[in-house]
């Protein structure tokens, strides 16, 4: 059968080894508490990838873990937070204040437009968002990295709208074309087609903008299932390089229709991330000492996983104690 995924199906270990190098520019899918690609984030840390250039819009857990583990050198971002569990991502804040990472601030729409430009093969996108703010006035990246690697020659450009005359100024945002996009999906068909359920955030734009795409998923489903309603599908097989079957692969963040975020784990993380020694202990306990996702899930334990299991009626865990 043509278009099957047997050649693309691989372990997280293989996917990270093959598609991510030191210095890679990687786009993180998901949004704050949802569909963070945690299984790949933990594997990147295990493989001690360094100097990553992360591009995302609003991101949370995977980003914070990667930064805390010292994998990230450069970051283009709109928001680093985990909602009520960490209004500002903890290791992110520490790293920025300590000057350990170079950061370039954009807004969510700006970052989404940059991914969309890359996805559509357009050189840049124009917007009015940000005029008059420090987002358009202040560059975060040092001048000497400008134009090197995947860093654009300017953060952005402000031009006059040629259709409206000098008074009408617009912001031009350079396209993003990351080396790899990391996406966690609910379903991948045996034909390689990807289906996201619930909000897609900017995952599709990120995937379409990237040179390579790794999709981890909750379920690999038969071709007949995924092709039964193609209107619901999100990415064609030919844009995906690696498929990793990883149930609960977004834990402790949520995966709509499969499981909720895990408030107990996120609180545990928050407490340990606040302290350098405890954070190292977290990395040892939850990343380095665990060889793979199976071991991780064993450590989380069936009780906590069942607690966050989504109700099929609403797609989250109804009545979950989130205080």
């Amino acid at each position: 059968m043509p278009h099957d995924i047997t050649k693309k199906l691989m372990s997280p270990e293989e996917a990270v080894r093959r598609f991510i190098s030191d210095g890679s520019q990687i786009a993180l899918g998901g949004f704050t508490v949802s569909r963070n690609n945690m299984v790949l984030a933990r594997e990147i840390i295990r493989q001690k990838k360094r100097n990553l250039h992360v591009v995302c819009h609003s991101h949370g857990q995977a980003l914070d873990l990667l930064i805390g583990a010292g994998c990230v050198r450069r970051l283009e971002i709109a928001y680093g937070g985990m909602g009520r569990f960490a209004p500002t991502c903890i290791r992110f804040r520490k790293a920025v204040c300590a000057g350990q990472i170079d950061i370039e601030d954009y807004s969510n729409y700006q970052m989404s437009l940059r991914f969309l430009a890359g996805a559509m093969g357009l050189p840049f996108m124009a917007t009015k968002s940000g005029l008059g703010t420090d987002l358009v006035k202040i560059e975060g990246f040092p001048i000497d990295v400008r134009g090197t690697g995947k860093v654009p020659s300017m953060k952005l450009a402000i031009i006059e709208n040629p259709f409206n005359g000098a008074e009408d100024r617009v912001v031009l945002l350079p396209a993003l074309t990351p080396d790899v996009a990391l996406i966690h999906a609910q379903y991948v068909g045996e034909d390689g087609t990807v289906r996201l359920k619930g909000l897609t955030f900017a995952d599709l734009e990120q995937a379409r903008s990237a040179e390579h795409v790794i999709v981890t998923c909750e379920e690999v489903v038969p071709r007949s299932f995924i092709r039964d309603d193609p209107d619901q599908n999100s990415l064609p097989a030919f844009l995906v390089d690696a498929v990793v079957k990883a149930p609960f692969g977004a834990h402790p963040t949520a995966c709509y229709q499969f499981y909720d975020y895990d408030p107990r784990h996120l609180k545990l993380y928050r407490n340990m991330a606040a302290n350098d020694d405890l954070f190292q202990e977290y990395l040892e306990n939850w990343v380095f000492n665990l060889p793979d996702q199976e071991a991780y899930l064993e450590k989380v334990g069936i009780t906590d996983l069942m607690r966050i299991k989504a109700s099929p009626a609403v797609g989250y865990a109804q009545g979950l104690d989130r205080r």
Partner: protein
Amino acid sequence: MLKDSTGGKRELRMNQYSPREMMATTAGRMINNGDVVFAGTGISMLAATVAKRIHAPDAVVFFETGGIDPSLEELPLAVADPRVMAGTSMNAGLIEAFSILGHRRLRTVAFLGAAQIDRFGNLNSTVLGDYKKPRTRFPGSGGACDAASLAWGIIIFMQHEKRRFVEKLDYLTSPGWLSGGDSRAKAGFVRGGPIAVVTNLGIMRFDHVSRAMYLSEVYPGVLPQEVVANTGFEIDISGVREADPPTDRELLTLREDVDPQRLILG
């Protein structure tokens, strides 16, 4: 304003209410029926939801993440919470959400918070101190700069403290009235700007010509001088009046219907 000094938060009586309850109901009243409301989490969720359940049933709540008109049977704790994806009319993505936010045919009202605000309603949610070597780092713009740039209007929630109401922002993340007057239009914006600032002390609005912030209402029991003392720039208090407290219906809706777990009410 009565603080909840009785201990049991769940035993608040109807003639008592917390600052958060006052803020949520006050802001909720600013929502008109038919508005398209760009909600964040926290208190703005309460404001939008209480408005929808009481006087603005046709208001539509949506999130920058792409969730449009969710049923909100449980309160989301983040804009990417799966609770914003349930019972929606549509699950879209960021591109669609921000397109809606800036859609010229819609009266979109966005709720924002920030670490700092200046007299023209410009907001900082990025850093304190020098941007390159910050004293502390906040999450960043997220969609705040986009909302402040593109929405029909924004309503800002703040804790009223001198260190937050500042003469000069450490970083201008989200555009308010910029440097006042017609500077916002001159910068290239075609609409928008701050409508009001809702704090734990009262409501600030902006002069229609100078675009400077003034004190519009104080909550029952708050003196205008308290606002002056907690504001780091000069603020006109000459036209202030006392705000209406939450009604019984608003409080009941908030406490029993919108946030029974007191996840946001605290």
